[in-house]
């Protein structure tokens, strides 16, 4: 079942001679139950692709559809609600609010989205799997980069989103943790029937992916051969 569809997406920044063409004719489909990996070097347009997919920016041309509904046609309020209820973002940086403890990051979400979140028990299990269950009373500033990233992942999964969009979620993690995060995202896709899209330059995640795309200078190609490599 198609959950997220990007059709003929182009994105330009700037105008005139300083205009850069960041995304070129991108067609992309994400289905529930699948983990999609988008691999590309720095500056290839990964973050731009992900923010357009999540409705945070609008493409210059083309259409983004979420569960059949055009994101372009949504009001700002509907887009907020969509992000809150349907999408789990793991951003590249600054995911956490510095003056809230780990526990309070989740409490904040619960204040705004009261229902359909993880139960306390499931959250405990998730935190344990991410090996951050002992950090609940710490502030982000007291955590390492990797710990922060894992809290951000848990924070994104807390709302039980239909789609998870993750930008370099393993950038600060060592190999052992990468495997754990890969497994969590894979399980999430398969068992919770979630559409997971991860953009990264980390090839270590390839083995967990159902589909691997490559993005280079704004052009995206499906390259499932990478999984065999």
């Amino acid at each position, binding site marked *: 079942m198609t959950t997220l569809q990007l059709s003929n997406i182009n994105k330009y920044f700037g105008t005139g001679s300083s205009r850069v063409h960041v995304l070129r004719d991108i067609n992309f489909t994400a289905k529930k139950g699948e983990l999609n990996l988008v691999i590309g070097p720095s500056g290839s347009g990964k*973050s731009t692709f*992900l923010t357009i997919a999540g409705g*945070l920016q609008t493409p210059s041309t083309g259409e983004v559809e979420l569960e059949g509904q055009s994101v372009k046609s949504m009001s700002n309020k509907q887009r907020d609600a969509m992000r809150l209820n349907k999408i789990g973002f793991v951003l*590249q940086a*600054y995911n956490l609010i510095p*003056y809230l403890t780990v526990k309070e990051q989740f409490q904040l979400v619960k204040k*705004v989205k009261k229902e359909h979140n993880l139960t306390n028990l499931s959250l405990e299990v998730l935190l344990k799997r991410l090996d951050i269950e002992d950090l609940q009373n710490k502030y982000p500033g007291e955590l390492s980069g990797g710990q922060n990233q894992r809290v951000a992942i848990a924070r994104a999964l807390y709302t039980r989103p239909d789609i998870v969009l993750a*930008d370099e979620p393993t950038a600060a993690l060592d190999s052992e943790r990468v495997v754990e995060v890969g497994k969590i995202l894979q399980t999430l896709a398969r068992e919770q029937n979630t559409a997971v899209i991860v953009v990264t330059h980390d090839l270590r995640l390839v083995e967990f992916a159902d589909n691997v795309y490559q993005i280079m200078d704004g052009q995206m190609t499906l390259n499932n051969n990478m999984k065999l490599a």
Partner: protein
Amino acid sequence: MFLSFKEIKKEKVRYGLIIGMIVLICYLIFILTSLAMGLAQQNTDAIDSWNVKSIVLDKDSNTSMAQSLITKDEVKKTNVTSDKAYIGQAAVVTKKSGRTNESAQFLGLKSNQFVAKNLTLTSGHKVEKANQVVVDDKFETDGYKLGDKIKFNSLDKEYKIVGFTKNAKLNIAPVIYGNISEWQNLKNINGQFVASAIVSKKANFKTDNKQLKTYSKSAFISKLPGYSAQNSTFTFMIAFLMIISLIVIAVFLYILTIQKIQNYAVLRAQGIPAKTLVGATISQSITLVVSGLLIGIILTAITALVMPAAVPMSFNIPILSEVGIGLVLTGLLGSLIPIRIILHVDPVSVIGG
């Protein structure tokens, strides 16, 4: 509320300093207002204590009791009933060896009229004889005692202090209540003149004499020498202080909000509605201003307790409340300015890289 309180809890020093700044601003405004009110009150304390509504003066006196003289003829047909009283005013300098001279206002009263009858004393007794006076407690603060003999100006006649009274100030000078006959002596006038003024508890008191004119209490007070000028100076000072404080507080709250934009961008990306963030910002501003205000009030109250009596201060609760409400509104305004920025914060700005 959640976000704003958690942030204050985490950043105790930063928010402590901001609250401290608001405390000082509130304290400054309160103390200055109280000083201004205190000074204003020293102009009118005596008049206020009589509870009069109107005052009759010679129409050519330029609304000045000191310049007004009322003759026997002019009040021939006026019935000075129980809610009316004669007052004879004379500026004097009191002398007593071993004590500092005092510039004072001698107010001659008739002991059977209400002003003299209603006078409340803090010690001693009322004027019973012509050579007795009841004086404002400033004399007591300055070392005068019951039974002390004082002289006026260069005259030889001695007067005995038989009582002290509180809040008897006219135009900032302490008041000496005596007999109206002594007023005639001090002014060096004969029995043709009965008083400087007739005060009445009725607002509509009129004499039928064309030379006399009735003024309302407020009209009379506004014409006290220097009173209006003094008050408008203070009003402007406090108004400017309020406006500048408004700007300072608003700028601080603005900077605070700007520093949070990155966090807000993350929350917006996660779909947290802008209204939650606006709510957090406003509730935080109000928390800061209200706690600053409360501490400022406590400080002011403590100051009121330890302030020496010689410093005229008046803590007028209604006016100070207005000032307080003004400060809270200021804080609200300061937090409203950056709301546009919050509403337009771009989540993509934090995603980069």
